[in-house]
């Protein structure tokens, strides 16, 4: 029973991080029609920056202040996104979509090496944050309080993004642009600005995902590519461009992964891909996707 609670918490933790990642990916696709292959690398960048800042500051400041530094990674990634969209992506919107895939794939390769140059091979972690919060007891077991914070951030992010997209002026404009870019601009919307903002928001979520995961794990090279494929699985199951889809997809992937690990570990990856392929075959646009 306690184990069940722990595994559910583990799954929710993983789902929170995956949701942030996949929702950003989905948002960017929904608005701009671009699959951002570099999304996982931006997540890794967020993890590295936060770990680096916190390691640097850990000796100097009080742990409570360290929590204020947690979003550092997300902010740096957002700044990167705001530069990437106009410089690299904007010139390509009129070209066939494989070129957009290629350019973001190129960005992935560059970012992987940049992180290699800057931070080298030694894993970076931000454990002072983890230690500051201690543990809670779950029956005879314990669970790190920080992970509960991550789950809370995930829930908050899901609600926040939902409210943002469905309840604010910017959200309406975002949806309008994603549905009919031409008409949006003919009504006086600065589509270019909406694109930058959407891409920045997507990057922010990726960076935040990396930032919140790093205190409990570590920033290591290759983490971006590994997680990118999982994020694909999530958005494919949920439906590209759909936020509800990203949420449901993240939950499905996390719970299935945990279940497979608990009961039949050899199939960990194959099962996830199989689910994705099965969903695509039955509903080519995913569970919540817009029809093509």
């Amino acid at each position, binding site marked *: 029973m306690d*184990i069940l609670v*722990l*595994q559910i918490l*583990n*799954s929710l*933790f*993983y789902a929170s991080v995956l949701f942030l990642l996949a929702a950003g990916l989905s948002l960017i696709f929904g608005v701009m029609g671009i699959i951002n292959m570099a999304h996982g690398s931006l997540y890794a960048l967020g993890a590295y920056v936060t770990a680096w800042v916190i390691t640097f500051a850990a000796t100097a400041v009080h742990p409570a202040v360290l929590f204020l530094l947690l979003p550092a990674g997300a902010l740096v990634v957002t700044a990167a996104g705001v530069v990437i969209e106009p410089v690299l992506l904007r010139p390509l919107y009129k070209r066939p979509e494989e070129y957009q895939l290629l350019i973001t794939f190129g960005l992935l390769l560059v970012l992987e090496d940049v992180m*290699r140059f800057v931070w*080298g*091979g*030694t*894993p970076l*972690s931000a*454990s002072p944050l*983890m*230690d500051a919060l201690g*543990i809670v007891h779950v029956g005879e*077991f*314990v*669970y*790190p309080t*920080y*992970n509960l914070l991550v789950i809370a951030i995930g829930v908050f992010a899901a609600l926040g993004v939902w409210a943002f997209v469905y309840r604010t002026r910017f959200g309406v404009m975002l949806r309008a642009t994603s549905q009919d870019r031409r008409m949006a601009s003919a009504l006086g919307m600065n589509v270019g600005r909406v694109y930058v903002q959407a891409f920045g928001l997507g990057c922010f979520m990726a960076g935040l995902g990396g930032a919140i*995961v790093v205190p*409990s*794990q*570590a920033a*290591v*090279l*290759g*983490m971006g590519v*590994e997680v990118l494929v999982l994020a694909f699985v999530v958005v494919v199951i949920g439906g590209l461009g759909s936020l509800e889809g990203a949420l449901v997809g993240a939950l499905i992937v996390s719970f299935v*992964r*945990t279940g497979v*690990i*608990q009961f039949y*570990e*050899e199939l*960990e*990856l194959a099962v996830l891909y199989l689910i994705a392929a099965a969903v695509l075959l039955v509903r080519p646009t995913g569970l919540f996707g817009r029809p093509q």
Partner: protein
Amino acid sequence: MDEQKQVTRRDFLRQLGVTVGAAGLGATGIGATGYLAAPARAAMKPKGNIPSTPIKTGHITFLTGPAELLGGPGLRGHLLAAEEINAQGGILGKRKIETIQADEAAGTDANVKELRRMKLSEKIDLFTGVISSGNTPALGPVAEELKVLTMFNDGCTDFLFDKAVPNPKYVFRVTNIQSADGVTAAVGAAQHWPKARKIASIQPDYSYGRNVHEHFTLALERLTGGIEVVAEAWPKLFTTDFTPHITKLLSAKPDLLVVGLWGGDYVAFYKQALRYGLFDKMKVATTLAFGGVPHAVGKDHPEGVLAGVHANYHFLYPPGDQWPVNKKFVDTYHKRWKEYPSFESDGAYTTLMMYKAAVEKANQLTGGWPDDEAIIAMLEGMGYDSPAGYVYIRPDNHQGYKDAVTGLTKNLPEYDFPVWDPNSIVYIPIRSITAPPNWPKPGQGGNNESTAAADWIKKTWPKAKA
């Protein structure tokens, strides 16, 4: 407590020649039958004409990625040896060592291509390095075919000489073999926690993890009897989230957990396990906790964990007062790189030094620069006083052997990272835990096990009374 059982286990361990505590060193050694090359010996005068062209060595190791924790120290050990040799004018006073590096993280396929390039295009004289046990079986046959003298300093799978290259000519390996990891951890566990019966295991899901799991459980069953494997977790290599695996292990409530994770994976694992209280709930035996750079594991690491070092070297052991070779190595290494050496540093350093010794010896016999055949003849059966102690290369399988060692973690004030508790160190003569020369290889002579060592243990070790 059944007195009979206790005695049996103790007798068994004594029979294996296991000693405990820092004083145990020195009495071990497997009885050299070959040529003993002591680095302390005064340099011999080279015979004949020696060309002054540099010796080109190729060194593939992990320069990036999570395994850089192992590869970095290895490369630094290699470079230190090269610098020391070059400072004396090079091998035989003439030929300096040049190193061509490549990143093992590029993957097996790229590594094989790179080895071909190094030999065919760069014309290397010696190939060294390689950490992944998935890579040596792929590189071994290629090296034999290219006829390039190869001294792996890790990539220690038994399969290399059991199956992939059963009759090696050009390929050597200086570190210990993999099966010894699982067996060493089992001996250490049997020594420190004789009553553990319910065993759980978390291993990286590839051949190293499979090997550790198999040899650990096999040996522990013989040493203590009546064990039961209650949980197995097989995370993919380079996993970052271990929490579902940790929870699964907790749910099985084992007495003892054996961990074969290494490098960045082990660091991520112990940090997460710590927060789940795993170390309070079970004893933990690892094969590679001290395998990376010593400072990779922080002082938050729990004490009393059996911390393996894989190829049997920890920089504090053998202690400097008993084994000056090590003291000198640690001092120069620390001075050069501002960190303490790992087993990879020792392995890469010793590899180059043994090559040098073999060349010098061959030169004394043949004059001039010896050809590969002559160097190989010298390496086969060579014994060498390395920082880690006495290393012996068995002629039948080109494998380097040294005595195994492990110990329990403890935080000592003089280091910012955990080290071994001096009173807990377990030394095991290597002959006691590996198959003797010419033992049938898997698939031959009635050996249906995965390694020669497993077959040998099954057939010759007595079973402790359960």
